[in-house]
């Protein structure tokens, strides 16, 4: 589904990714771990198409097509979703309205009819339960006045509503207490399907207790220094990143 080839990325003149290779297939969960500043969030943002990041080499293939030149909205409409590390506040824009605009944009892109207000509300109520959110959050501005944990749940709510093919979770687990973490993990598990893939970017091994990652990668200084299975995450938890520095 996702194939990253020798990807090199610069931000404000500084090279952050120095040749990343990654293959993600349908049904897989990949965890990308690493220290602060290792390039994890850059990788997520570049896949999503943020234009402050400059791709200076390599390629990103999604369903066998290069998406480097695609606009962020087109990537989103084609099924790439990013859960933001810092979800953005949009005051005055009703959360329901925002979600509905996003979902209907996607449905339109797929040639489906837009959902009407009643159908949409049914869907959203069901999804709210999955992420353990109260209905009152729907009527607030997007992420406006939300706590850190509520913002992350709202991201997962958007994910399960938009049903992307590829979900990139950029530190969705950070700042969550154990209960919220479980809920988020549960949301992700419900979303998981054979025809979908997930890339989790995280500092900690703990979310992997609730999600079975097929592959764990360690990003060090803009390159994937080591890949393995879940045992790699456990080793990192135990020994830290130091033993991988060479």
């Amino acid at each position: 589904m996702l194939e990253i080839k020798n990807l090199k990325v610069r931000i404000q003149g500084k090279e952050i990714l120095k040749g990343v290779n990654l293959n993600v297939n349908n049904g897989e969960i990949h965890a990308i771990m690493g220290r602060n500043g290792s390039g994890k969030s850059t990788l997520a943002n570049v896949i999503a198409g943020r234009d402050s990041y400059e791709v200076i080499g390599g390629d990103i293939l999604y369903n066998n097509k290069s998406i480097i030149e695609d606009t962020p909205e087109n990537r989103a409409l084609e099924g790439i979703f990013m859960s933001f590390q810092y979800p953005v506040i949009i005051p005055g824009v009703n959360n329901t309205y925002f979600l509905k605009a996003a979902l209907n944009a996607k449905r339109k892109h797929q040639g489906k009819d837009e959902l009407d207000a009643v159908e949409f509300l049914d869907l959203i109520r069901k999804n709210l339960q999955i992420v353990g959110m109260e209905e009152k959050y729907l009527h607030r501005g997007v992420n406006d006045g939300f706590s850190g944990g509520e913002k992350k749940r709202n991201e997962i709510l958007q994910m399960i509503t938009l049903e992307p093919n590829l979900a990139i979770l950029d530190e969705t687990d950070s700042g969550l207490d154990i209960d919220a973490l479980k809920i988020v993990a549960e949301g992700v598990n419900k979303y998981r399907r054979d025809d979908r893939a997930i890339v989790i970017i995280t500092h900690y091994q703990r979310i992997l207790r609730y999600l079975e990652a097929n592959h764990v990668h360690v990003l060090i200084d803009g390159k994937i220094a080591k890949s393995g299975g879940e045992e790699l995450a456990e080793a990192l938890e135990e020994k830290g990143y130091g033993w991988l520095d060479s």
Partner: protein
Amino acid sequence: MKTQNKTIEEFTSQEYQYGFVTDIEQDTIPPGLDENVIRFISHKKNEPEWLLNWRLKAFKHWQRMDEPKWAKVDYPKIDYQSISYYSAPKDKSDGPKSLDEVDPELIDTYNKLGIPLEEQKMLSGVAVDAVFDSVSIATTFKKDLEKAGVIFCSFSEAVQDHPALVKKYLGSVVPYTDNYFAALNSAVFSDGSFVYIPKGVRCPMELSTYFRINAMNTGQFERTLIIADDQSHVSYLEGCTAPMRDENQLHAAVVELIANKDAEIKYSTVQNWYPGDPKTGKGGIYNFVTKRGICSGSNSKISWTQVETGSAVTWKYPSCILKGDNSIGEFYSVAVANNFQQADTGTKMIHIGKNTNSTIISKGISAGKGQNTYRGEVKVMKNADKARNYSQCDSILIGSECGAHTFPYIDVRNSSAQMEHEASTSNIGEDQLFYCNQRGISIENAVSLIVNGFCKEVFRELPMEFAVEAQKLMEVSLEGSVG
């Protein structure tokens, strides 16, 4: 002066010989302004002596005044002698009795502007008093209104048919001495709308007027007078749009509202005059308007809602004089300044009566090289015990070359007054746009989503069909402002 006079005479006599070779025949006097022009206008309209004298007094006063310079707007000097002060569709005397009799080309123009009279009659139940250039040409729903005792007609008709009301109220809220543009309007006003709602009547429909500028070099000097008698209620909608034009055009309207005891007037505007060439700013409309209402009776209420998306320069402060005890004044405003537009707009709330209450919600949107200024004054007089005001002025900036400015003036002379003022300025950030994009929402839709969210408090004050129109206008006005 003599030559001028002669030209006018030639012009008026010419009319009978040839008419004019424009698509729609117009009868326009040559540019220039002196007493004779005012006499000509007054004569054309068959006005009574007192009105002519009022115009002449206004003109004399205007000649002694200077154009105001305090607003934060910049435009080339206006040559008032290069403006033509009268233009009207011909054959007014045997004018159309129904839409069928209206020049089909005119109907076509309205259709292009999205104002299908027929459809509006059927679908929205809005009575439309359409102003083409300076004279009303079509009035619908007159009968229903008559049944309720409501008078809704052109200003000229009101002068003929209801002279006592006009004489009593004209200039009572905005005297001709008020300001430069109001004085000019008082001298040369061409036409406009007149509304009278009798005691205890709730106007059975929303009243609406569409203004439009058509003739080259013709200033528009509309005069609107709305009187709501005791316990009455009226909602008036005003919207305007102007076609492409290469020379700046002056629009100096005056609107006066009078709300008697327990009466309520709601006045909504969606203004979309031509803002000028997006690349140079050339050719837009100057919108210098004086709008003021008086809550003269106790428990009365006046509410202004405006969505100002057009014009090259806007100078406009719809205000309320809260004279009656317990009276309420409201001002809800969205002003857009995109490309080279300049807007200096706001309100004045003058608290005179006891327990008077005012609310100001102003939303300024600046994009391109646009400059948006909120200018407002809240004044609490000595006897206005327990007056209250809440003001909220928010600005949003799109891009880095535009500006937002806020000048709130507060003058309180009674210690029991309660004043609240909130202000905020924000940007549409790259992160907000990216967030929307990442959810599949395009840049244009994201801007519209964010801006509409920002304007929500004002839009919800608009009547339904206007709210939809306002959102569309907003999208059109901000097209291409990002990305």
